[in-house]
């Protein structure tokens, strides 16, 4: 493990604070064409996956839009940080979002 990787591996994805009354759901629940704001990445998910999702642009506080689903409902294409990325349901479930403010 290189020094840089070790250093980066110690990162923890800090969640984004939201007012208590905001409804929080997961990315997997987003309807087509809707946008939401990322609140956090589930602590129960594998930490390496959390960090990878962060590096892919799923940073708390960022806006994300659900674009479309594949024919058998999985995977789903999202628009985030200026590009489009497909995620499977099992990854999308790990990302908590709140309705766009």
């Amino acid at each position, binding site marked *: 493990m290189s020094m840089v990787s070790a250093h980066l591996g110690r990162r923890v994805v800090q969640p*984004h*604070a*939201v007012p208590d009354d905001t409804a929080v759901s997961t990315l997997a629940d987003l309807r087509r064409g809707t946008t939401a704001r990322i609140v956090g990445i589930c602590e129960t998910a594998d930490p390496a996956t959390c960090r990878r999702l962060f590096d892919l642009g799923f940073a708390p*506080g960022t806006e994300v839009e659900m674009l479309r689903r594949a024919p058998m409902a999985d995977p789903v294409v999202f628009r985030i940080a200026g590009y489009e990325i497909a995620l499977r349901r099992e990854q999308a479930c790990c990302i908590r979002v709140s309705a766009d403010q």
Partner: protein
Amino acid sequence: MQPDALVPVHAEAVDGDERALRWVMPAGTLDFVGAVRRVPVALQVLVDDGTVEDLAVEPAAVRIRLSPGRRWQDEGARLRTALQGALAIPDGWVAADPSADRVLAVAVQQVIDGDVGDYIRSHGGAVALRAIEGERVELELSGACSHCPAADLTLTQRFEVALRALYPPVREVTARTDSGLAGGRRLLGLSPSRRR
């Protein structure tokens, strides 16, 4: 802005001064320019322990110089955290010489000394501040630029973009040429809207 979000800053080098860096912050975070009398404790600690030699506020940055013998590669991360903490409390910053108008004036001077000014000078022209009225700026264009048909739109627009980045509330930038041809030419103070 969410309560727990950090103030976005990044560091830029200062020509000719290795111990100093301009820490760029969102324009308008602080409402004064120049030397400071007091800063929030997070940053004051670094002044008190001898890390920071000098602090000066610019329209969209804080210029910080380290004391002799200190290096940015050692102090940078710590200083960034302290600065972000301090900037989150704008009220904790007290100017040595509080004067709100000065922000716009300093911003204009910064643009004149910066890239846009360089561009004008490279074409044989010169630009100076003529007057400030509230949020309106009047410039004096002289030299080759006064006869150039592009002077009006291009230069003034570029100047205004650069100025707005440092001082968002600016309302209008006009340029007067020294030959006085047709008086000053006015421009719309609004930047063209982008199609969304």
